[in-house]
């Protein structure tokens, strides 16, 4: 099978499936190596870009999805009913940021940083598949540890977890220590 044929098949798969699909899944269908699939997918992404197409190939970790181009949003938006694409609440975003940077993390750690209980928020984030329970900590009470999912990456347009914006945290802590020392 030549490369162009594979490209055509993969494009059809992505279109028909709609949601993000794993490289492994595509490779299995085509019976080719995942590295080959990855290769073709990145070529496709470049082609869409170069040809100024109306669709883009979005990557989130090992998942790929066809989406419409952001430039065309105002036009597509006219087809949508208002308010069907609801965003996350402020509190949910807070909890999500803590999980994203501190994962794997327990609920107690999240509560401590936020100063409020996060039970409800965590449950709704799990329901939305933005976070998942990654295991249990071997400590009294066996607390669940949370981490972000591939769906989280695609929700925020991140190709991988390393693409998160950098924290200015270390800097801040150093500042505190310096100033505290000075005041003493």
């Amino acid at each position, binding site marked *: 099978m030549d490369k162009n044929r594979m490209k055509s098949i993969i494009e059809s798969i992505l279109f028909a*499936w709609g949601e993000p699909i794993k490289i492994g899944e595509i490779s299995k269908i085509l019976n080719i190596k995942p590295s080959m699939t990855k290769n073709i997918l990145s070529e496709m992404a470049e082609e869409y870009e170069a040809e100024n197409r109306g669709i883009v190939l979005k990557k989130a970790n090992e998942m790929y999805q066809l989406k*419409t181009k952001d430039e065309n949003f105002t036009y597509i938006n006219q087809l949508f009913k208002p308010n069907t694409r609801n965003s996350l609440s402020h509190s949910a975003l*807070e909890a*999500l940021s803590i999980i994203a940077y501190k994962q794997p993390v327990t609920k107690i750690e999240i509560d401590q940083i936020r100063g*409020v209980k996060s039970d409800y928020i965590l449950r709704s984030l799990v329901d939305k598949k933005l976070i998942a329970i990654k295991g249990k900590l071997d400590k009294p009470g066996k607390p669940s540890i949370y981490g972000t999912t591939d769906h989280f990456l695609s*929700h925020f347009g991140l190709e991988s977890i390393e693409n998160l914006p950098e924290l200015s945290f270390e800097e801040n802590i150093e500042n505190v220590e310096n100033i505290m020392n000075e005041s003493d």
Partner: protein
Amino acid sequence: MKYIVHLNKFHGPFDLLFYLIESNEVDIYDIPIYEITEQYIGYVDTLQDLDMDVTSEFILMASTLLEIKSKMLLPRKEGVEDPREDLVSQLLEYKVYKSVSELLKTKEDKEKEFVGKPAEEIQYDSNFNEQLLFEEISVYDLMYTFQNLLKNCKDNEPEEIIFEIQKDEFTINDCMDIINEKLDILKKISIRDIFSSNKSRKFIVTVFLSILEMSKLKNLRLVQDYTFGEIYLIKDSVS
């Protein structure tokens, strides 16, 4: 009432505290604990006055602030840490994630402009012959089919349904009488003997129920010599 607008946006005690520090334009590393505590408690009071649900976390923070305030009043020895230190580092950590969450918010909004479709439910018929071929069906076919259906409906109109009510062959009362008679003669009967006369399922069930009924009414006692041994019926002396 102008407070409500502000109060609604606080997502926790740190959020409120942060707002106070920023609106007072004070240095976070040198919080004027007296003023901030006063204002904080003022806000929490307003929350309660407005009948809003003040969660325990807000109260906890109020007491932490009061504790720090009282510690600040005491003379501090050399080398003892500032009572505000823990709070400040917590606040700073919170601030980091708060600003990150705002960043994520803008990323989320941007990403929404790329529109993807939800998964399609893709199904196909495994047996092509079963697919309906509409091309060859005319309106008349539909009409005939419908008429046939109606005709069938008439033919199948339900007839009178006749139920047969079966007469009870044995009643519990009858059996109780029989057992009583037997007991009057024999004083002690084994359960097996009673059942031996008729082996039908109905009879066994009825006799069993009547034995239970009689023992409940204290007409007889059930005795057994040893575990899993034969069970005997004895006329209860009380009755």
